[in-house]
């Protein structure tokens, strides 16, 4: 089974569930439903709640993360005073589950963060340096600036595969960056001077990437 971690209002998550066989959504509401049991070092399989059903962790092959946080606004049936606390608790629990599951997680928790929070510039900028790539300067200023004209080159990476019509040089660099950051899925963007502009996992995957992700997430786990 493939689990997509996302919101019920996320149309990309819904499309991925339609595209992949035996896939289901784990929503914010599911994170607060009865049935979750996670006990480190226990011989019993941990239990998830997916689409309101209890599922053993051993029955899940892959998890695709479509969120960076759990938001208070997702708990409309909870008293407004309690929503922020519940969202923080659900978010913290999700980080723990994604770090502890035996399933393949795309992308894994890094530095205690998930989704885009796990691929922040402070992580990928030094990694780019280690991978021998130059980085397009990221400027933060309180002054008004004219937007830059960008001519981006986009490469999608899934595991060891790369998709898109980018030059070979960009494709190789994108694969190197993904490996450097332990990312199984990413969109890597370069500027017109072949400098790394950004890395994201939030962009909807293209058709070829959806297929590759489905194969990766459905593959049987090694014993």
């Amino acid at each position, binding site marked *: 089974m493939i689990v997509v971690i996302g919101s019920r209002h996320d149309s990309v998550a819904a499309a991925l569930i339609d595209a992949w066989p035996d896939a289901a959504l784990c929503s914010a509401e599911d*994170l*607060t*439903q*009865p*049935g*979750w*049991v*996670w*006990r*480190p*070092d226990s011989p019993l399989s941990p*239990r998830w*709640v997916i689409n309101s059903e209890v599922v053993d962790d051993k029955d899940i092959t892959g998890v695709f993360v479509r969120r960076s946080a759990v938001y208070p606004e997702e708990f409309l049936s909870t008293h407004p005073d309690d929503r922020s*606390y*519940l969202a*923080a*608790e*659900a*978010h*913290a*629990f999700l*980080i*723990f589950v994604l*770090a*502890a599951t035996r399933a393949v997680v795309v992308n894994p*928790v890094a*530095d*205690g*963060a998930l989704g885009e929070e796990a691929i*922040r*510039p*402070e*992580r990928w*900028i*030094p990694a780019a*340096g280690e991978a021998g790539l130059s*980085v397009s*300067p*990221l*400027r*933060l*200023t*309180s*002054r008004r600036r004219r937007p830059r004209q960008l001519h981006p080159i986009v490469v999608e990476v899934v595991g060891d595969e790369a998709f898109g019509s980018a030059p070979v040089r960009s494709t190789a660099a994108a694969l190197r960056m993904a490996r450097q950051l332990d990312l199984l899925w990413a969109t890597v963007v370069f500027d017109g001077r072949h400098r790394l502009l950004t890395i994201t996992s939030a962009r909807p995957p293209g058709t070829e990437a959806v297929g590759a992700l489905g194969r990766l997430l459905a593959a049987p786990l090694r014993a």
Partner: protein
Amino acid sequence: MILIWGPSDDPPVERTVSILRARGIDLVHVDESVLATLRYDVTLGATPTGWIETSDRKVRVDELTGIYVRPGELLPGPARTASTALLGIASCAPAIVVNRPSAGRSNWSKPFQLRLIAAAGFTVPDTLVTTDPAAAHAFLAEHKRVVYKSVSGVRSIVATLSADTDRLHAVGTGPVQFQRWIDGGDVRVHVVGDRWFATAIDSVVDDYRYASRDGADVAMAAMEIPNELGKRLVGLTQRMGLLVSGIDLRVTENNEWFCFEVNPSPGFTFYEDATGQPIAEAIADLLARGLPNV
């Protein structure tokens, strides 16, 4: 040049600033109240460049040799974008940073951090995170007495359950972390660089931080811990990417040490005031280490 980022009325920030100023060390303090009017032009790369400017100081980013990060609540508007720039500096600057922002994130999820602590070789209590009342009942029946606490880094009051089984149905509305009760004495260890300061805490309540709320007393005293344990705690702190930490431990009658949590932004003045341990001085030493002639 040292950058301090945090509210002036926060005791750890206030004390660190006072000590550095008393030593005549040049610093710029960015209080939360000036964030919205902070001017900056910072370019992030392998080494960040640019400048930040408060109402009375303009500082080049490459001048910064030490940074102390203890921001308050995230503010909206221009203060938020200024915070992003400061976080970028604190993340990438080749300076002594207490602490790098990404290093503190493990504390957002207590069971996630507990895995890191266990992976570092420390003994941690048997833990269950659940929304299943039956699983919570079984865990309580197995251990007889358990602690329940928040899963996230949001501060909560740690409390115990022994026979109060009527309340366990409430776990069905959101995840709760249960831990086997460990009988013993609380010890807080502050690690600063390669130094450590251990405090023994004596209180009859479950969560000594809230003892006054229950009309109870807390007695704290500086204590010695085994040298080997101190070194391991320094190693744990470094392994998490931190330079300063506040580590919560409990030691049993059999001299078995359990590790509960590593706080990446400890409110150390609470302990310093009670014991006289020079924790702020040690942090000032650490921050000043990158300065020439110090």
